[in-house]
């Protein structure tokens, strides 16, 4: 059993992955998860919408990467891939696309394995974002890091507190990628947010994970020297909406920024 991962499955505690599933309309959850989800929803009616917005942002971003020719994806913090998950989106567009899912939640991992059984182009890694070298080592079995890779960090970096040096984790992941690779990040922020959002953050402490809200500048820093694609780091619904009508009147109400950056080949000396 890898270090740092849970040695006990405690089904009496809610799981972030299963709460997320509930918000997306799934039934991959238990009473304890639904109770917490309802409680969060009562305090911040926006949150369910935020999660859906995050899912939609991810879908659009993956589409954009597919359009750019990316055919391998490393989805870290994939949770329970219930609906609109990356391999469905990716393999729908390119049947040869490869996806590696990574999650810390052993139930989510077990579920993903069952769901993906028989799909040779996907795999699931049980790991913690805080051990990026191990993630990369495990992913190398399926992904070729000599070619462009799409690294997806949707709604996961905010689970890493500053004490665990998220900047270094991101640097490690970027350093492993070849030119032409993309980095997709969505991340909760306190910018433009009402107090209720900040209160909800405290509630999330009741799962095994606590959220660190960060500024736009901090989140931008996670992309390093990679080139941010238009329209930059924005409130999630504003990132390349399918149609202008999809954009909410208050896109900031979802409380999270999304952005995509590309690793451009450094100019040869």
């Amino acid at each position, binding site marked *: *059993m890898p270090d740092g991962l849970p040695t006990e499955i405690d089904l009496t505690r809610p799981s972030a992955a299963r709460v997320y599933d509930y918000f*997306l309309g799934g039934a991959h959850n238990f009473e304890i998860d639904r109770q917490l989800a309802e409680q969060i929803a009562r305090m911040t009616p926006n949150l369910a919408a935020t*999660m859906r917005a995050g899912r939609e942002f991810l879908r659009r971003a993956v589409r954009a990467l597919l359009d750019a020719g990316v055919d391998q994806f490393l989805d870290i913090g994939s949770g329970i891939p219930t*609906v609109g998950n990356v391999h*469905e989106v990716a393999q729908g567009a390119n049947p040869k696309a490869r996806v590696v899912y990574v999650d810390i939640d*052993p*139930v989510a991992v*077990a579920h993903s394995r069952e769901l993906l059984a028989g799909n040779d182009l996907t795999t699931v890694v049980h790991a913690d974002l805080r051990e990026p070298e191990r993630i990369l080592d495990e992913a190398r079995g399926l992904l070729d890091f000599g070619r462009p890779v799409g690294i997806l960090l949707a709604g996961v970096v905010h689970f890493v507190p500053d004490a665990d040096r998220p900047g270094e984790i991101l640097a490690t992941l970027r350093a492993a990628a070849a030119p032409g690779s993309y980095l997709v990040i969505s991340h909760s922020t306190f910018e433009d947010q009402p107090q209720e959002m900040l209160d909800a953050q405290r509630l999330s402490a009741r799962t095994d994970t606590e959220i660190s809200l960060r500024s736009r500048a901090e989140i931008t820093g996670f992309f390093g020297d990679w080139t941010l694609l238009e329209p930059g780091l924005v409130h999630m619904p504003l990132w390349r909406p399918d*149609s202008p009508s*999809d954009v909410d009147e208050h896109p900031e109400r979802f409380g999270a920024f999304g952005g995509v950056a590309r690793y451009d080949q450094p100019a040869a000396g």
Partner: protein
Amino acid sequence: MAAVADSAGDEVSRAGAQGYAAEWARAVRRLGFVPLSAAETERLLLVHTVRLAQALRAEPFSGQPAEDVGRALVEAHLAEPRMLEWSVRALGEEFLDRAVPAGAYPGNARQRIVALQAGLSAGFARALRDRTFSQQERIARSAWQARDEVEQALRDSEARFRAVFTGAAIGIGIAGIDGQIIDVNQSFADMLGYSIEELHGTDVAGLFHVEDAAGMWELYQEMVEGKQDLVRVEKRYHRKDGSMLWTDLAVSLIRHDDGRPRFTVAMIEDITERYALQQRLRFQALHDPLTGLPNRTLFFETLGRIFETAAPGRRLGICFLDLDGFKAINDSLGHDLGDRLLVMIARRLADCVADQGHLVARMGGDEFVILVDGGEGLDDAVAVAEAALAAVSAPVHVGDQQLAVSASVGIVDGPVGGTSASELMKAADTTLYWAKAEGRGRWAVYDPERSARDIARSSLAAGLPAALDRGEFVLRYQPIVSLLEGRMLAVEALVRWQHPELGLLGPDRFIGLAEETGLIVRLGEWVLRQACRDAEEWRRRFPEARLVVSVNLAARQAEDPAIVATVSDALSTSGLPAELLQLELTESAVMGTAGEPLRSLHQLGALGVRLAIDDFGTGYSNLAYLRRLPIHCLKLAGPFVEGIRGDGPEAAADHRDERIVDALVRLAHALELWVTAEAVETGVQAERLRALRCDTGQGRFFGSPMPADRIAARLARAQGGSE
């Protein structure tokens, strides 16, 4: 999609259906999460709109397509109840008017719409129920599978640790906080000689040993209370068979998740052999291999511990014992017999104080020491010393030899507070030396005043050579006067030490030291040469006086083969005629160590030097030799002269002394020797001595020792008087 629209073209209002589907799509996207883009959603719902419109007009009519649509919605993840609500309502309120060409619908269309609403709802509900069942089943299965994996990992881990626990060479025991042993491994049980079952449930307190390290059980208690996490000690156990087990013990505390103490885990390593080896090495390091007695290291450790821990008033005695003449025994009988003698003496010494618990140690060679700890006074230490001397002096049979051995003991006794270990041992050493000096088979008790004198003497002795080099010695001269005519015929050279700190020291303070250290040869030569120089100075200034200088020659000097050359050189260097030099020797010096008169006396005599016997009458002179030797003068020792005091209650004694002096003078004159009386203090004495025909006198009556220039002044006065 276009194909559907085309084939349905005559049944469905194409534009109407598209408008209906677009509104439907906007509604579902507003009401819940849709994992599709807006266009995809719209295309999907257009298909369902067309299916519903076709079902409405189909003959015979069936609600089944609506059920299929309801199921399809759920399978496309459009499963929000509010989406169903919207879909059913729109189907009833708007579908006919918008999606079906006007007038193209049958007369019972209203009933059919209701049937389609029912079918859609049933299909949606059935699919949602199926999906919920399958997702619930899947998440539950996943949860159990994840739990199984974790448990399997734990079981694997448990199996590995169990293997370590079971197979470990070190003993491992686990106990609850209540002290009950929960489990031990085979090694643990084997080390203690019990079976695992016998140890289960027993209390760790049962493993207590009386000699457990101080504080160990307090540490254990603190651990059980959660104040310590690790205790590491050397601990001994009683094995089941009663034998001793020495272990290196480490006890760790295992806590509950919330930090409360839960178990203690003890790990023991059997170090019995290592401990035994250590003990053996320690014994070897602290004991004398020959006699088995404690050695000086152990003795000093013990002494040091007493000084560290004892109350200042506690008395401590040391008997420092050394065999008399052991070297001679060793040399004559061989080291083997010498060693066997030491072994027997050691055993006797140990036996004689064994019941009193005193420590007997061999300090090296034939030196032993007995530590009399906690005695009540000097008497205890003396009793121990006498017991030791008695034990030693009983005849010893070594091989076929019977030896009579004796020893000397230096005793020091006093309260711990007044001294230190090193001072005590130094005092014991000094005292042993005194005992030795007083003769064999004795004990002596330390006397601090005597020791102080010894120390002063030895520091004087140590300073002598440098004093000679720095010219700190000076000469004084005491007149020797003719009893017949009162004229100063000679002076005796007497050496003084002008000590920079102690002032002018008389010869009694340092001549003995100079003789012991051998410095007397150099000092005597200096005296001789200085006296010759002074005498030659007087001779040059007062040639008529013919003043003789009399210089003492110590035994060591007289025996020195170079003495003749030295005297000769002193004369020639100074220019003093030989007949103006007199050398004074004591009777014992004249006889030398070989028991016969020194050969050099004749050679000195041949130089023309006068020879006098100093302190005549106090030694043992061989009159036969006296007759043949080139002696010129006898100096009568002071005690005879002191007896001649004239009147008084001691007149009878006077009379006897006077007759002795008379006899000595007659003897001297018979041998044609001059006689000088020393220590003449009064005119009465001088008059008597003159009457006894003694030739010359020396003493305070004729003048105390004085510097050379005062002798010159006296000569000058005499010359002036005669002129």
